[in-house]
């Protein structure tokens, strides 16, 4: 039973990733990415990462995917078919990535990992302790990063920037 659900989750995850890589419609690609991220949250539960599974759904599905869908709607529109890269068409890219994946598979299978079977444990308390003890410097740096991020996004989307450029294009069109 455990295995059946695991294989179903893995198929959902990889199917979503396939949709993202090969679907022509960008909205379908975004929805495939959504499926893939939810499936990854399911896989995290199999790896005893309960806190991460929930934060994956909260941050990725609730935040990142909403932002990506919004930016698709606000820029290219839902119906647009997006073209392939003229510098790298599909077949050479697939060959290149298959070669890369084969090397990766080969090294992973031939490395002598010593695996150990851990028990399933709740991890939230441990993560909190680690974040506020050993990784406190990184934690503080990330909070500074998020402040910078908010200011940076605000600067990019500032109204004067858009207004100034629209007035400039008006001048150009008058000329």
């Amino acid at each position: 039973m455990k295995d059946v659900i695991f294989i179903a989750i893995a198929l959902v995850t990889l199917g979503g990733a396939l949709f993202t890589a090969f679907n022509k419609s960008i909205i379908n690609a975004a929805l495939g990415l959504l499926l893939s991220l939810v499936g990854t949250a399911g896989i995290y539960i199999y790896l005893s990462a309960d806190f991460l599974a929930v934060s994956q759904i909260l941050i990725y599905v609730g935040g990142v995917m909403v932002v990506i869908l919004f930016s698709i709607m606000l820029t290219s529109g839902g119906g647009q078919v997006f073209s392939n890269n003229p510098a790298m068409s599909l077949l050479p890219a697939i060959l290149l990535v298959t070669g890369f994946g084969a090397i990766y598979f080969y090294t992973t299978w031939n490395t002598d990992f010593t695996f150990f079977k851990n028990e399933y444990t709740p991890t939230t308390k441990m993560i909190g302790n680690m974040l506020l003890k050993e990784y406190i410097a990184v934690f503080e740096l990330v909070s500074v990063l998020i402040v910078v991020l908010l200011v940076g996004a605000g600067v990019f989307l500032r109204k004067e920037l858009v207004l100034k450029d629209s007035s400039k294009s008006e001048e150009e069109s008058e000329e």
Partner: protein
Amino acid sequence: MNLISENPYAYLAIAIIMFSLGLVTVLTRTNILAILMGLELMLNASALNFITFAFFRNSSILVNGHIFAIFVIILAAAETVVAFAIVLTIFHQRQTVMSDKLNKLKG
């Protein structure tokens, strides 16, 4: 090691395939947002790798890999927000999000 879900190589294989699909997306697309989605897939695969090795490692501290995955998720979210702002600004100025059309610096 009889169950597939208790075999670490199953998780590593999922991560490898997901990373490769993300790489294909980044290489073949010209839409900036699609390239961004490929990046998300690759970051997700690397976080999955971290958590796999955190779970199948013989250590008293289980969550070292989880901390890395949390920071990967935070950085992915931050990157997406900045990319959203940049893409919207580019779209306001150039009316396109195709990376092969954004060649103003070519002269």
